[in-house]
């Protein structure tokens, strides 16, 4: 059924080792994700619709035909790869207007604190030490939900899912209070700045599409 595949998260996994690709693919499948694996950063960028100029690898242009038909909810990449490292890939993704909203996770077999903080500073959501375990992947859902919600907010929203706002409850009291929006307001602004924190807390505690029935949630 069409809805079935649309609701699965699609992850792009990047690793130069065949063995590691097999592992991460199975881990992701077991976590109910759709997976595409590639063996290099440049192939990852190609898949995402960025054309890499071989003569000038620092110049990236968006491939005219590819309008990112494939919706990727997360990129998970190995750090140590020949040519373009996972860190390089992370930078290129975050520098691209088209791709920067895609969460990126870095994996490495080496526990180098300087490496970890550099990646997190550059915008990586998580840094996983290999071997990656099934339990690690549960941390991915909140990050992937963000992109799903963002993309879905651009489609017409079902009326039953939004509760009409009550005038008394306007202020955001604490980060655990969810702001109830009137029907006509778009969800998109909700995902920016300090409201994002509230959203994140809803998302991480309730994996299904948030239902705005309760005015306050205790986290």
């Amino acid at each position: 059924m069409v809805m079935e595949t649309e609701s699965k998260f699609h992850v792009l996994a990047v690793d130069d080792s065949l063995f590691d690709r097999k592992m991460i693919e199975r881990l992701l499948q077991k976590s109910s994700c759709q997976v595409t694996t590639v063996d290099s950063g440049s192939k990852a960028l190609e898949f995402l619709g960025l054309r890499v100029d071989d003569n000038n690898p620092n110049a990236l242009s968006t491939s005219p035909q590819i309008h990112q038909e494939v919706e990727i909810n997360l990129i998970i990449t190995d750090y140590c790869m020949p040519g373009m490292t996972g860190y390089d890939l992370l930078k290129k993704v975050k520098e691209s207007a088209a791709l920067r909203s895609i969460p990126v996770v870095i994996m490495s077999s080496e526990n180098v604190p300087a490496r970890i903080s550099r990646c997190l500073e550059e915008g990586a959501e998580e840094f996983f030490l290999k071997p990656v375990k099934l339990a690690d992947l549960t941390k991915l859902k909140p990050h992937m939900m963000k992109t799903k919600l963002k993309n879905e907010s651009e489609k017409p929203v079902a009326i039953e899912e939004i509760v009409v706002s009550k005038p008394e409850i306007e202020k955001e009291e604490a980060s655990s209070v969810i702001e109830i929006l009137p029907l006509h307001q778009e969800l998109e602004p909700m995902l920016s700045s300090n409201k994002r924190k509230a959203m994140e807390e809803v998302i991480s505690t309730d994996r299904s599409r948030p239902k705005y029935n309760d005015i306050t949630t205790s986290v």
Partner: protein
Amino acid sequence: MDTLIAQLQRQFRDYTISLYHQGFLDDQFTELKKLQDECSPDFVAEVVTLFFEDCEKLISNMARALDQTGNVDFKLVGSSVHQLKGSSSSVGAKRVKGLCITLKECCDSQNYEGCVRCLQQVDIEYKTLKAKLQDLFNLEQQIVQAGGRIPQVDI
């Protein structure tokens, strides 16, 4: 009176436990088993096979590099052992992983003798593990053929 299936299951359970207790396997192997299901019923066997192929290839590369007396490419040895350490870690091959760590140290200090000795040990160790896992898989097959279920073994 013990049925054949019950006997085989007990053998399987005991053998599995011994592999963990003797340090051949660690709990990453347990993690691997979690990934096996009806969608991917041979996952562990496939991954383990890939691992042993990796062992063969990488050990051969390192042996060749160490053979170039006077002109040993320690960088190559280093990157090969790094790969092997990674895959042995992912598979739960505890002893192999431990030896890879030692080999890496020898390589980093360009200790030729140490590297040669260590590599020999890695070679012996992966072959030993390969034989033991083969025995374990054979036991599994015997259980299935006898019409039984493979028991879940909690370490």
